[in-house]
């Protein structure tokens, strides 16, 4: 298998913890992993992205070529659109539907949604509302991960186990909240 993933959002939204869970699941399956991250000068409030590649064969490039990403997982709808040139024609966008407006020229929300609707495979979810309704306010990003499970090509149980290992030292309550979030996301991908 080989899955090229672009994780994106606005600095501070927690895309790297999604990457950590995917990386842990892939590592446990003895898959090859490359993950190019964004560090450095204050990125909070700015656009951030990470290229995550997992494969059963050795991976050479740390960066994903244009038109070849299998999945874009985005914590913000306009940010998902930013990386469209990297998305394969058969690729999936899994994105939060809630805009994060911290710039004066943010486009009309309807325009953003219309642009997303033009993509063949899209799942948009109001993950913050879902998290709030289910009383797991800090696990919104894991709902998105659950919704991306099929597109990622990783078995659901393996993501569950990765969550247990990644969040285990934070206690059962945190693990349970994230497992619940994963399940909510899984339901949404149907």
């Amino acid at each position: 298998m080989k899955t090229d993933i672009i994780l994106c959002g606005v600095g501070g939204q927690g895309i790297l913890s999604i990457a950590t869970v995917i990386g842990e699941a892939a590592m446990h399956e003895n898959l090859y992993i490359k993950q190019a991250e964004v560090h450095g000068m204050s990125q909070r409030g700015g656009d951030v992205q990470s290229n995550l590649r997992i494969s059963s064969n050795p991976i050479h490039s740390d960066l994903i070529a244009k038109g070849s990403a299998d999945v874009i997982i985005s914590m913000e709808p306009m940010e998902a659109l930013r990386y469209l040139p990297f998305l394969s024609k058969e690729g999936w966008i899994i994105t939060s539907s809630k805009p994060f407006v911290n710039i004066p020229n943010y486009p009309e929300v309807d325009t953003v949604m219309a642009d997303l609707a033009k993509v063949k495979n899209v799942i948009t979810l109001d993950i913050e509302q879902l998290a709030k309704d289910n009383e797991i306010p800090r696990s919104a990003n894991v709902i998105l991960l659950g919704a991306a499970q099929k597109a990622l090509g990783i078995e659901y149980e393996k993501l569950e186990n990765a969550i247990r290992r990644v969040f285990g030292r934070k206690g059962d309550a945190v693990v349970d909240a994230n497992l619940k979030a994963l399940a909510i996301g899984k339901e949404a991908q149907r």
Partner: protein
Amino acid sequence: MRKLLLGDEAIAQGALDAGLSGVYAYPGTPSTEITEYIQNSKLAVERNVHRRWCTNEKTAMEAALGMSFMGKRALVCMKHVGLNVCADPFVNSGMTGVNGGLVVLVADDPSMHSSQDEQDSRFYGKFAMIPTLEPSTQQEAYDMMEKAYELSEEVCLPVLMRVTTRMAHSRAVVEVKETPRAENELNYDAKASHWVLLPGNAIKRNITVTGQQAELEQRAVNSEYNKYIDGADHSMGVIATGIAYNYLMECYPDGCPYPVLKISQYPMPKELIRRMTAECYAVLIAEEGQPFVEDLVRGVMPGNAVIKGRLTGELPRTGELNPDALKKALGLPVSEGYASCEDVAPRPPALCQGCGHRDVYTALNEVLKDYPNARVFGDIGCYTLGFMPPFKAIHSCVDMGASITMAKGAAGSARCHQRECQHHRHHQRQPHHRYDGWSGLGRYRQVRRHLPWPGYDRRAPQGGCSPAQEHARDHASDA
């Protein structure tokens, strides 16, 4: 043991497992995580590895050289522009040579994700006559650290390890050793006069080090990191250095049809390059950074070889490489994805909400409102974002610490101007022209003495108060 490590972390773990005794560094993206990793490492704590952030790259380099003098293995880390700051001890460490292994780790930032320029540290290695390594994968970065220390101790020279952003800040699975090597014993190099670079000693050392270059080149020819992989199609050969090799391999999942020379150890393995230019009609040179190899291969003398690369436009002249740049250079089709979306607006980084720098810039702009030609000399850090809207508060950012010194010079220029004015009697001496000319502060004091507070008549006609008082008044109800 398999670990998922950032390139920086693989380097740090590699140094620890190679028997590191001390790391000295000045933080800078993309090098910072190396020292942080060592500082938090259990092994480093157990062994009490000396691990220090230093005043600047120069003092870090000197501390590491001192440790090497005593026979221990030392590491010094910095970003590329930091090598300018420590150029003096770096170049002269090539003259003194080393005792314990010394690795100078420099992280370059092509495409300037977080830097002022995209200088390529391999040039420093060449003119300081210091052997240079450039890993292409995280695993190679880990393995190379031990080899770098061995090389350093065998040739008694420091080793420059050059990485770039995509190596430093990308994670991969790395196989690490179960048992770390022991540290070196203290071993003071008692009879070595070459640590005293008096001209008499340095002249002898210069002959020795210059004489070593042929041996260093032969080591590069035989290096396990420099590979010549023959291919069936000799219409072209590809030289790929460091992580450019990855992008090349990404283009050919079933193997590259052309002969490939991967270079990860310098001085340049000229023998291998001559083989390629002899056997192939054309040569494409792909390197992450400036056209260092390409320039040297091209030279100035006309030859038969057709050389393609950054200097001829097959690859972009500036900026980091990526798989698509290589595809274009190799004449391969670039995959068609979706068209870019025109509705997407840029979202630049901003100072965090509640950051103290926001208040500083707000206050600064308030004070400077009445001085239309005021120039503010800024510095390097997230506060450089004060250049961006809504603050637009600084007018320079050049290098670490340049704000005060540039402000001195700028104020000095105003002093010259004022003298000239006096000399030619072109202007009446105005009270606000009589500043000391040595600093912006001096001017500010002079101006303050002769003018009312900037906010005096404009915002507080009822009696006047300072901006701080105004702020307190305006926001009294906020609490």
